C-alpha cells in the first residue's frame, strides 16, 4: 500500500495504490484517487481498498481456474466428439457391411415382430417370392412392406412355419430351454421350391426397442422370428437325378443278377435231378467232371447272392450319401412301428415255423427321428433274426433307458463269434460268413442300420455267443431335439 501526490489535470492530487496480487505475483495495481490528501484519507478507506485488492485477486484466481477447467472440459468434449465421430463412422461401416451382406445374400431373409409384422427383409426375399415391386418402392418410399403382416404378403408353407414358431414360443411363460430350428420345404414363385428355416427371436425385457438381441437366455422375451429361405430347386433337381441314377443302377444291376442266380439254380437243380442220375458213375473222369459242374453251378448261385447283397448295401449307402434319404425329424410312438414290422414279417415267421414274442413297456415316451427309417431298421433286424433262426422264439422288447428307448431283438440262431461281432457293423462287411451258420443278412445292411441310428444320436450293438443266439440292441432318442447334424459329415 502506497500513497503519494499527483497533480492531475483535474486537480486531484492524492492517491492510494494497492497491489493486485494473484498467486504471489503482482498483476496490477488498484489506485484510489482522491481530492483529499493522504493524511486526510481515513483508515476505513484504506482498509476498503486493501480488501478490494485481495478480493479482486481471488476473483481473478477463481476466473483463471474456471477458464482452466473450461479448457479441460472443452478438450474432453472434443475427445468425446472425436470418439463419437469414430464410433459413428464404425457404426456406419458396420451397418453398410451388414446391409451389404443381407442385401447380397442369396438366401431370402425376413424378420417379423411379435405381431407377425415384417420389420426387416432383403432383396432376395422379393425376387424369390416374385412379390409386387409396388410393395417395396412407392412414391420414393422404399420399404413400404415394412409393418405389413407376413400373412398379408405370403401364404402357404411359410405361414405354417411361422405359426409353429409362435405356437412354441409366443407364450413367454413356457419358453422351452432349447431353441428349435423350424424347417419346411415350401413353394416359391415361378414353380421353384425352397427350404425355409425359422428361428425364434428374443429381446431383453428392459430393452427400449425390439432390436436388441440378448445372450442371457434367462431374461428373454419372445419378440418374433427370423426366417431364411434357400432356393433348393437346383439341389432338388440334382437329388432327383441322383435318385434316378440309383434307381436305374439298382434295376440295371439286380435284373441281370436275378438271371445269373436264377438260371444257375435251375441249371443246378435240373443237372442234379435229371442229368446226374443218368451219368455213368463208373467212369472216374465223368464222375469228377459232373461233380465239378454241380459244384460250379452252386458257386455261381452263391456268389451271385453275395454280390446281390453287396449291391444292396452299396445302393443303400449311396442313397444316404447322396442325401436322397432325407432325414425327417418327428416325434412318434414306437409301439405302432413294432406292431407293423411284426405284421409285415409274419409270413417269414410262418415260413420258418418260428414264433414271435413281444415285451413292450407301457407308457413309453415319444421317440424322435424318422419313423420310416426306424421301421426299416426294426424290420431288417427282425428279418435277420428269422433268417438265422431255425426253431424257437424271437423275442422283441422295447423299454425306457438312459438314452431314450432301447429296442432288443433276440434270436435263437447260431450266434456270432466275438471277433466277428466287432466287425458286424462295418461298412462292406464280408457277406456270407459273418454268422456262424454261414448266411448273410437281408434287407438293410447292418452298416446302414448303424449309420441311421447314429445319425439320430443312438447306438447299436450285439451280444452273442456261438450256438447261443444273438441279441441285437439299439437305442432311439426321445423327446424334443434341436435340428440334427447334417448327414454329410457322418459317413
Amino acid at each position: 500500500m502506497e500513497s503519494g501526490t499527483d497533480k492531475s489535470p483535474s486537480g486531484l492530487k492524492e492517491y492510494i495504490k494497492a497491489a493486485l496480487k494473484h498467486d504471489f505475483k503482482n498483476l496490477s495495481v488498484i489506485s484510489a484517487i482522491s481530492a483529499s490528501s493522504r493524511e486526510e484519507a481515513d483508515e476505513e478507506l484504506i482498509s476498503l481498498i486493501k480488501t478490494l485488492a485481495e478480493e479482486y485477486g481471488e476473483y481473478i484466481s477463481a476466473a483463471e481456474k474456471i477458464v482452466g477447467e473450461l479448457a479441460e472440459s472443452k478438450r474432453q468434449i472434443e475427445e468425446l466428439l472425436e470418439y463419437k465421430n469414430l464410433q459413428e463412422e464404425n457404426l456406419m461401416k458396420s451397418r453398410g457391411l451388414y446391409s451389404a451382406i443381407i442385401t447380397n445374400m442369396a438366401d431370402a431373409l425376413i424378420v417379423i415382430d411379435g405381431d407377425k409384422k415384417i420389420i426387416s427383409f432383403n432383396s432376395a426375399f422379393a425376387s424369390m417370392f416374385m412379390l409386387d415391386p409396388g410393395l417395396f418402392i412407392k412414391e420414393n418410399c422404399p420399404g413400404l412392406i415394412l409393418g405389413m403382416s407376413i400373412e398379408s404378403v405370403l401364404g402357404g408353407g411359410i405361414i405354417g412355419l411361422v405359426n409353429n414358431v409362435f405356437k412354441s414360443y409366443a407364450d413367454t411363460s413356457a419358453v422351452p430351454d432349447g431353441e428349435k430350428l423350424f424347417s419346411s420345404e415350401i413353394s416359391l414363385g415361378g414353380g421353384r421350391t425352397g427350404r425355409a428355416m425359422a428361428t425364434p427371436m428374443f429381446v431383453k425385457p428392459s430393452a427400449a426397442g425390439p432390436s436388441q438381441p440378448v445372450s442371457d437366455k434367462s431374461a428373454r422375451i419372445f419378440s418374433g422370428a427370423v426366417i431364411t429361405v434357400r432356393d433348393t430347386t437346383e439341389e432338388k433337381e440334382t437329388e432327383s437325378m441322383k435318385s434316378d441314377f440309383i434307381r436305374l443302377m439298382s434295376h440295371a444291376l439286380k435284373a441281370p443278377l436275378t438271371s445269373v442266380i436264377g438260371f444257375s439254380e435251375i441249371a443246378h437243380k435240373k443237372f442234379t435231378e435229371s442229368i446226374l442220375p443218368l451219368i455213368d458213375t463208373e467212369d472216374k473222369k465223368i464222375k469228377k467232371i459232373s461233380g465239378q459242374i454241380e459244384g460250379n453251378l452252386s458257386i455261381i448261385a452263391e456268389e451271385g447272392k453275395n454280390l446281390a447283397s453287396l449291391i444292396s448295401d452299396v445302393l443303400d449307402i449311396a442313397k444316404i450319401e447322396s442325401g436322397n434319404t432325407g432325414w425327417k425329424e418327428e416325434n412318434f410312438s414306437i409301439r405302432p412301428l413294432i406292431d407293423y414290422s411284426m405284421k409285415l414279417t409274419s409270413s417269414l415267421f410262418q415260413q420258418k415255423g418260428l414264433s414271435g414274442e413281444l415285451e413292450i413297456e407301457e407308457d413309453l415316451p415319444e421317440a424322435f427321428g424318422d419313423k420310416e427309417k426306424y421301421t426299416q431298421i426294426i424290420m431288417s433286424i427282425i428279418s435277420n433274426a428269422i433268417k438265422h433262426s431255425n426253431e424257437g422264439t424271437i423275442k422283441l422288447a422295447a423299454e425306457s433307458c438312459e438314452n431314450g428307448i432301447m429296442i432288443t431283438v433276440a434270436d435263437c440262431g447260431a450266434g456270432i463269434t466275438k471277433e466277428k461281432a466287432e466287425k458286424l457293423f462295418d461298412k462292406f462287411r464280408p457277406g456270407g460268413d459273418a454268422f456262424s451258420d454261414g448266411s448273410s443278412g437281408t434287407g438293410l445292411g447292418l452298416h446302414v442300420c448303424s449309420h441311421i441310428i447314429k445319425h439320430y444320436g443312438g447306438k447299436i450293438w450285439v451280444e452273442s455267443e456261438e450256438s447261443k443266439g444273438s441279441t441285437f440292441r439299439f437305442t432311439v432318442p426321445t423327446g424334443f431335439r434341436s435340428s440334427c447334424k447334417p448327414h454329410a459329415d457322418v459317413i
Partner: protein
Amino acid sequence: MPKVLIADDEPHIRLLLEQTLEDLEDEGLEIIVAENGAEALKAIKENKPDMVFLDVMMPKMNGFEVCSEVKNNLKIQGVYIILLTAKGQEIDKLKGMESGADMYMTKPFNPDDIINKVREIL
C-alpha cells in the same frame, strides 16, 4: 386249369420264371406272359389269371399302378398278385401293400420260393 401271368419287361426274367414254372405246366398250369404294364392289365382282364408275378418297373404302366387298378378299381376277385422287383427297400414294400398286392418279392429271387408259393396258392 389254373393260370399264372408273368409280367416283366426283361426277357431273361420272363424266361427264368417260365423255366421255373415249367414243371408245373406238366401238372396243368397255364402260363401267360406280358411285356409291359398295359399288356399285363389287358391280360388280367381277358384271362382272369389266378396268380400274377408283376414287375414294378415296367413301361406304359408300372406294377403299382396295374396292381392298384386290379385290386382297388376293377376289384377283380381271386387274383393273387406278387410284386416282383429289384426295388428292395422296405418302404417300397409298403407301397406295394398299399396298392393292394398280396405279396412282395425282391429280385434276385429263389426259384424254389416261386414254385413253393405257386403250389401254396394254387
